[in-house]
């Protein structure tokens, strides 16, 4: 799975963008989005998903159940 950003919750503060180890986050239409194919849920980088940890609004960066679980490659 990957994380996604709930658009209605996002304040566009951009705190998540530089924290993402995969450069999966960018601004689009006034808020930020996560590219699911790039998101690794920070597995292999950090203990906590960085976007979740830095986001000032609770329940904004959430698991996107529609995306298959990320599989770390080697």
């Amino acid at each position: 799975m990957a994380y996604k950003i709930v658009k209605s919750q996002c304040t566009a503060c951009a705190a998540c963008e530089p924290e993402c180890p995969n450069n999966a986050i960018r601004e689009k239409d006034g808020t930020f989005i996560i590219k699911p194919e790039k998101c690794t849920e920070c597995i292999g980088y950090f203990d906590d998903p960085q976007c979740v940890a830095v986001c000032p609004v609770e329940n904004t960066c959430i698991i996107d159940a529609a995306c298959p679980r990320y599989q770390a490659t080697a």
Partner: protein
Amino acid sequence: MRQAIDVSIGGVQEMKPLDKVMQKMAEHKGCGMSAGSGKASCGSAAGQGDLAPEVWEKVKNHPCYSEEAHHHYARMHVAVAPSCNMQCNYCNRKYDCANESRPGVVSEKLTPQQAVRKVLAVASAIPQMTVLGIAGPGDPLANPEKTFKTFELISKVAPDIKLCLSTNGLALPDHVDTIKNLNVDHVTITINMIDPEVGAEIYPWIFYKHRRIKGREAAKILAERQLQGLDMLTERGILCKVNSVMIPGINDRHLVDVNKAVKSRGAFLHNIMPLISSPEHGTVFGLTGQRGPSAQELKGLQDSCEGQMNMMRHCRQCRADAVGLLGEDRSAEFTTEKIMEMDVNYDADTRKAYQQMVEQERRSKVAARQGGLSQVTGETSDIRVLVAVATQGLGRINEHFGHAREFQVYELSTGGAKFVGHRRVDLYCRGGYGEKDSLPTVIRAINDCHAVFVAKIGGCPRGELIQAGIEPVDRYAHEFIEQSAIAWFKGYLDRVKRAEIRHTARGDADIRQGAYVVA
């Protein structure tokens, strides 16, 4: 519409479109401006006080650092730093209201390039704008690239503008050398505690070293980083002010310890501000019903810290995109859309000439104050009273009671008149109040005062003030504040001496919460 103070010397006028302001500027350039008699004053600690000469030299034109300078010099904030690295219980980043005026709230965010354009536009229109600050709406040092890029660009195109920033301090130790290299003059650190037990009640979490850290551990790291950052800045000769939010029952008593800690580390000014907390802000404190301090609680804490160091009493807790003199906000004149259309002509010489005029004004004001102070010599009395003053600035009692959006509060004693704060009385965002309905609110805001000095006052409010025990005084209309207040106080002491009146203590007063109506 909220009245704004015209930046031109010698006059106070309705807020007007920028082109008219620019036109006025152009006229001023031609006629050389009459220095006029307009003076501003802000209390007995207005001058150098106990500051070292080199410190005074650095702060004397900074509206946020010099109590007296804030009547003469304007500042602007550019909102280039939206990200933050922690959560405070008095802040809610989701809340966004155009009528809101408090830290952490902005109407639009800027890129560093847009910020430079805005600075030049404002510097051209407001020649006494001498200070550029970055204060958020997040934390400037959680956005180091945007913040430092902005400073770098500004120092190239407008080297006469002083740079400052306001931070929560968490990332400060990592950036002190960059701050020094960019010639940032002043840094403000918000320090609400030095004890992690206290901090755990103010900060739910910090984001530090790629982890979200909560509770005591978070507060301990934060306090250490803040004090380390303060040490590092003062070692490098960068002036530091400390802001603290007074939260009754949580850190009010503790702030005396904070005051000692920051004083010993070389902070030169401490600004204790009241908590802003209303349920409609959606902050944790707003929702839990955490109250802010009363006017007397705030003053009491400020007074008890004053022996330690200089206290700031004129903070207006402005937004991260504020423009203009403290207490006014002209940011609506300088939106991105408007500045892109503006004909910006940054002229360092014109600015310098204008600022020299401002200096002349300041000097004549100091002379006026000294004249006033001599009037209490020879009197001995322990009586101290507070008085509220309706003023549009320029150091005079020149505002109608009903038009006042703010009262300045002076403490009068045989030692003189001392500025001790201000009380906002503008209407609430939730609206619907007429002037009649708002009168009790105004009275509650100045309820600890024995008198209110006004240029004019109607019969109805006059009666209600007298009934509330506050003497309306209009006989000093358009005269200097301090001289008038001292003259009145002398008469008050005489009346007490002759037993015409009995001196009684006043009650407490409210500090206004919530947004004010700007349009």
